[in-house]
């Protein structure tokens, strides 16, 4: 059970106690939901409904567009009142959204439960796609394409991510405590879809209740659920142990190649929340229309984990947790390291909303005045990607793209560790985030130039060959005539 040490990382204050003291709550159904069409990674979905149309709970309302995309389902029954650009919590710019006004009924669209054993693995993947499944850890990568990618590897190792390394977030912890059986069932379905040889569940050692619950569930599993032999790994609580690459390295000892995916080395990571959602979709026919959200921070009256219908407004969720208590310094979606600061609470809960932190000034350590970098090296020691952030900072200031490339800017996972330890209070992560598009553009321009060049040269050679063949033919004719 000993795991190879991850490079760098930080031991952070978890702040998870408060939200895990009370049991999981279920939020009341909202009167209106706002469902962004692009709440998953990849291309936005295309709407299948018209304004004014009546939709049922669980009815598909948008279909995937392109390879990496996902279905979207109505999370309440009612009428589509608008399809328009709305501000969302996960994008800077307003995104296209479907707005549904509830009609008060609880009518659900009929989705038959599926017998997993009678479907072959690829059909199972397609069925999982139809449930609108995406990764619920926060990156919202569509589950089905990930499964299909994973199937291309020779021997697949499914890794369930219950590490939940970011401060404040406890929704996976709560899920593992309360719905361990669902997770195991989901794991068995995912294993079947992947034809996985092995399955590991990673939990950080600051969640003893979750570890116990998972182990108990495994020994008490119902005989007709094919529970795979899940190896529960307890890892030290070091941020970002739950990052996909770090998780794969911890479990398999291998590194995900730069620019590649974990599936390149036969590993597939899924969040425990995703596994539970897959189980509900397969066994009960309920697509992904709700998720557990951690509502915490000193600024909320009753910190807790609450299961929310997707599209509910954040203000509504916070009101159900007792409302604000104090002057809010920042409202975060996600944890304090990688979470997004929201400008407003009039935004919908999306598939990526794992946590809402209502932070009072006491929860935050404000950034002091930025000083020049003194190259102390704290950042490179903390960097889980083994980069040299102090050098990247220097080259980003100089806008030296080749040097940035050489020092691995694109391998930065934006975990925020370097920012956290920087004595000069430099917003390094933001700087790297800003520099990445320029470097990507530079790289793709170079790739395009190489392609164009080979094609131009091939064409030149072909034209020259044709010309010489023509000349040769003419000469031959001349000879035969003369």
């Amino acid at each position, binding site marked *: 059970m000993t795991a190879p040490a991850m490079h760098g990382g930080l031991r952070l204050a978890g702040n998870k106690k408060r939200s895990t003291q009370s049991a999981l709550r279920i939020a009341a159904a909202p009167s209106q939901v706002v469902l962004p069409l692009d709440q998953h990674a990849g291309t936005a979905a295309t709407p299948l409904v018209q304004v004014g149309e009546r939709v049922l709970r669980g009815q598909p309302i948008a279909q995937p567009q392109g390879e990496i995309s996902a279905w979207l389902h109505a999370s309440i029954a009612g009428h589509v009142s608008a399809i328009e650009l709305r501000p969302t919590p996960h994008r800077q710019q307003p995104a296209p959204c479907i707005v549904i006004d509830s009609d008060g009924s609880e009518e659900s669209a009929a989705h038959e439960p599926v017998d997993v054993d009678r479907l072959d693995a690829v059909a199972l993947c397609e069925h999982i796609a139809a449930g609108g499944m995406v990764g619920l850890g926060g990156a919202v990568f569509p589950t089905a394409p990930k499964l299909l990618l994973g199937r291309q590897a020779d021997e697949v190792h499914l890794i369930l991510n219950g590490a939940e390394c970011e401060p404040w977030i406890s929704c996976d912890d709560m899920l593992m405590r309360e719905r361990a059986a669902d997770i195991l069932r989901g794991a068995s379905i995912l294993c079947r879809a992947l034809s996985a040889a092995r399955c590991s569940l990673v939990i950080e050692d600051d969640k003893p209740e979750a570890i116990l619950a998972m182990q108990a569930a495994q020994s008490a599993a119902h005989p007709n659920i094919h529970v795979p032999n899940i190896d529960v790994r307890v890892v030290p609580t070091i941020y970002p142990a739950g990052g996909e690459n770090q998780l794969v390295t911890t479990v398999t000892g291998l590194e995900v190649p730069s620019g590649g995916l974990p599936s390149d080395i036969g590993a597939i990571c899924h969040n425990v929340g995703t596994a539970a959602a897959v189980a509900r979709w397969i066994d009960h026919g309920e697509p992904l229309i709700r998720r557990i959200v951690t509502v915490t921070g000193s600024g909320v009256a009753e910190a807790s984990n609450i299961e929310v219908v997707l599209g509910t407004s954040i203000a509504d969720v916070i009101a159900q947790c007792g409302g604000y208590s104090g002057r809010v310094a920042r409202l975060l979606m996600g944890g304090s390291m990688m979470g997004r600061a929201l400008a407003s609470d009039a935004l919908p809960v999306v598939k990526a909303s794992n946590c809402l932190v209502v932070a009072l000034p006491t929860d935050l350590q404000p950034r002091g005045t930025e000083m020049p970098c003194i190259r102390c090296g704290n950042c490179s020691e903390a960097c889980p990607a083994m980069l040299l952030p102090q050098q990247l900072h220097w080259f980003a200031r100089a806008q030296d793209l080749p040097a940035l490339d050489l020092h691995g800017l694109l391998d930065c996972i934006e975990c925020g560790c370097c920012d956290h330890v920087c004595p000069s209070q430099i917003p390094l992560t933001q700087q790297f985030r800003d520099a990445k598009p320029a470097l990507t553009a530079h790289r793709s*321009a170079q790739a*395009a*130039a*190489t*392609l*164009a*060049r080979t*094609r*131009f*040269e*091939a*064409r*030149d050679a072909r034209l020259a060959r044709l010309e010489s063949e023509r000349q040769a033919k003419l000469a031959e004719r001349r000879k035969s005539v003369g």
Partner: protein
Amino acid sequence: MLVALLVMAAATLLLATALTLSRDRTQRNDKHGNDIIENRYQDKALIEQINQLLPQTQCRRCTFAGCKPYATALARGEADINQCPPGGDHTAWRLAQLLGKAPKPVDRQFGIVRATPLVAWIDEPACIGCTKCILACPVDAIVGASKFMHTVITSECTGCELCVAPCPVDCIVMRLPDEVHLPRTGSTVHAS
């Protein structure tokens, strides 16, 4: 005294040999009978280095028949560094670095190119299948056959615009790469 002179003569001879060898130039006549001096080894490697810096759009805005011909002209000192609009001022600056010339911005006479590159897009219903654009494309990025509809391979189009002018029915327009899958809209404008 005599010995000293001899030694110095030997040194001079050595120097002369080195000088002759280092010239490394061949002189010959081209087909019109003009003398051309070419520096074979230097040229080949230098042209390669210059070509590496060019954007490979093959758009001929520089007035040469492609990026490599422009590189050749640059290496021989027959062109200036500021003739490549798609490469922009950055490429001009890098060329100046390479060739040891004073940097200068791209001359606007050679054309103006927008920062986000466009690709050619064929309005397929309007295409008559004349193959003129296929012949014009310097990177073989247009597929199709005579009398059949043509289409542009977006990922291989360099945005050189050489196919736009030959089209007899004006069915080729330049568009943003992420909009090529969208249907033609009324807002498309033909600039003269």
